[in-house]
């Protein structure tokens, strides 16, 4: 048997990765056309500048993508904020640790794509206009949009493509924006929060207070991160040999956890958009039988890690009912940034907000070495303090009452055009 050198193995893997690029259809890089449209005055590109401290990464076809790490505008996720609030809280907590400048405002709508994918009650002009309205808010405050939700991330990449390739849609959206006193803007890159986390992995790992080497993680890769617009997802030859997206596996490895494989890694979680809300028999059956069971029985997973709203919700909330059929798995499901925050010593209840999760996290915390009983007592006392009208702890200074009504410009400077950052 011939032994291959590391370089030869890399070449084999790269050749395999490049094979994806020739799968019958040439995939254009829409970003090239985007810059040309800006030159023609058709739209404004929100640039990533030196002020955003970008980090360069590689995507599926070996293209370069810039991930801004500072001066960010949080594009929140409705499902995360609605029932997994520790997800955004953990992200903002890390940004505070790193002294990252950000805005987290009420002047944002969701992408509305959950509704669209579930019910079909929208159209391309509306979806694109919603995207541009949100992007414009980041633009006018001198920040760069960081998309929390995988579906928003996928949808916004579809909308970017649509706005770049379809002049009719572009004109309609520009007209709607003009009626609002806004312009047609498109961010230089569409960036998912997990990509920010990915490029900050080593810094996050350096904050670790707990040893995760006994923790077995299974990763569920969200479909809308890498299947919706495949060419824009981050891949790394050192993670899964470049054959699967690098986030969040790279972070898990950086944290020292064991990442275990399972046979159905490629399957969707079963969210289904409409199904999770109104046809849950499908969602919970698929999630339990196709995802949770292999994760537990094949990989002996201590925790499931994923990077999207719907996937955390589905995999977490679908387990309890499995007990009826003797499937008492109850494996905790967390977002990447939540496990990293626990590892870095963030408060499990005040910051990571694990009490919103249906599948219990106590066993995991105990295995990590977190004294969750002490933290829980502390949190219960905090709840009582809030009930008594006591001080509430915030990650940033709360907005003024006026901002419940008006999108007051923070007076930040719109950055000069400089894409060389």
């Amino acid at each position, binding site marked *: 048997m011939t032994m291959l050198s590391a370089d030869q193995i890399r070449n084999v893997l790269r050749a395999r990765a490049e094979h994806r690029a020739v799968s019958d259809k040439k995939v254009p890089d829409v970003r090239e056309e985007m810059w040309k449209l800006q030159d023609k005055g058709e739209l404004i590109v929100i640039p990533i500048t030196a002020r955003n401290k970008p980090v360069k990464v590689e995507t599926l076809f070996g293209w370069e993508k810039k991930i801004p790490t500072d001066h960010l505008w949080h594009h929140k996720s409705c*499902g995360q904020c609605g029932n997994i609030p520790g997800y955004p809280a953990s992200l903002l907590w890390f940004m505070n640790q790193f002294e990252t400048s950000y805005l987290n405002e009420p002047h*944002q709508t969701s992408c*509305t794509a959950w509704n669209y994918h579930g019910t079909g009650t929208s159209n391309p002009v*509306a979806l694109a206009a*919603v995207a541009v309205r949100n992007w414009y808010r980041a633009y006018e405050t001198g920040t760069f949009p960081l998309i929390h939700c995988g579906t928003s991330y996928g949808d916004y990449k579809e909308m970017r493509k649509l706005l770049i390739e379809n002049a009719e849609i572009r004109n309609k959206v520009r007209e709607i924006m003009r009626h609002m006193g806004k312009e047609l803007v498109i961010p230089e890159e569409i960036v998912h929060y997990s990509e920010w986390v990915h490029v900050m992995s080593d810094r996050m790992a350096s904050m670790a207070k707990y040893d995760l080497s006994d923790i077995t993680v299974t990763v569920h890769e969200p479909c809308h991160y890498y299947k919706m617009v495949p060419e824009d997802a981050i891949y790394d030859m050192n993670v899964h040999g470049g054959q699967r997206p690098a986030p969040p596996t790279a972070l898990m490895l950086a944290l020292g956890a064991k990442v275990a494989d399972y046979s159905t890694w490629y399957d969707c979680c079963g969210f289904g958009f409409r199904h999770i809300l109104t046809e849950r028999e499908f969602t919970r059956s698929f999630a339990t039988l196709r995802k949770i069971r292999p994760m537990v029985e094949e990989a002996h997973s201590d925790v499931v890690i994923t990077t999207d709203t719907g996937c955390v919700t589905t995999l977490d909330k679908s387990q309890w009912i499995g007990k009826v059929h003797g499937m008492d798995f109850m494996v905790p499901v967390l977002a990447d940034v939540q496990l990293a925050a626990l590892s870095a010593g963030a408060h499990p209840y005040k910051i990571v907000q694990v009490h919103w999760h249906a599948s219990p996290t106590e066993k995991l915390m105990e295995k990590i070495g977190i004294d969750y009983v002490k933290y829980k007592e502390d949190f219960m006392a905090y*709840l009582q303090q809030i009930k008594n009208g006591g001080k509430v702890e915030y990650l940033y200074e709360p907005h003024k009452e006026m901002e419940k009504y008006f*999108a007051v410009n923070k007076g930040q400077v719109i950055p000069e055009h400089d894409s060389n950052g």
Partner: protein
Amino acid sequence: MSIMKNLPNRKEADRPSMIVAGARNEENNSELAAKIFSQFRSDFRYHEFVLGCLNCGECTTGCPAARFYDFSPREMLQIAMSDDPQVLLDAMQEKIWACCQCYTCNMRCRFGNDIAGIISVMRELAVKNGLESTKEVLKPASRSLLKVMTHGTQVSPDMIQPDFFVDWDPKAVSKSSELAVLRKAIPIDVLQVTDSSWEVSMQTALELAQIYEESGVLDMLRALDPDLVEMIVDIISDWKEEFEEMKEKYVIKGDASK
């Protein structure tokens, strides 16, 4: 767990009566079928999304819906390519709603078809044309529709009630009684609300309403649920009045964002 049945291939007797009533009428309505077929083929996305098919079935092997429903993305693409308007209308009765929109089929397709996308186009047309079966399928989603059309977020903490989500979380009962204080204990000010995922400023909500109106989404929804549209219009109208009052209170002239 029980394997779900899919309505299109059930026997007549198995079908819920309300759906049958609508479907029967529509199945015989060749005029409606022709109209929808024409709309479908003239949509700018049709020629971008439907590129050809080898019938290889790669799309279906990875499809989550295909495991539990009588549904296959391969079949959906074949239907999209069929020249028979009735075939399209039949699939739009219920089959289109089985799709999870996960895009696994798209990634596996060697032709580069956007199968999930073309199913979305069919769904849009089902809504726009007010199919009775669509009204029935989307009836339980009206609450989240109202939420997204007015608040711009699609779920809210107070929607997670034990009577609606009894299978989700045994702790939901205690959460619902303690919801306000638990939300207050989130260290992010805009998340400390219960009726929306986050507090959306009124200006932002009104801008979203403007988008829905100018892009034709409200008109589209009228065919599906006129009462819902009326409710949305009433809420937005009240907010517009309140917004003007707030402008006076905070002495803001013209465009608030400036």
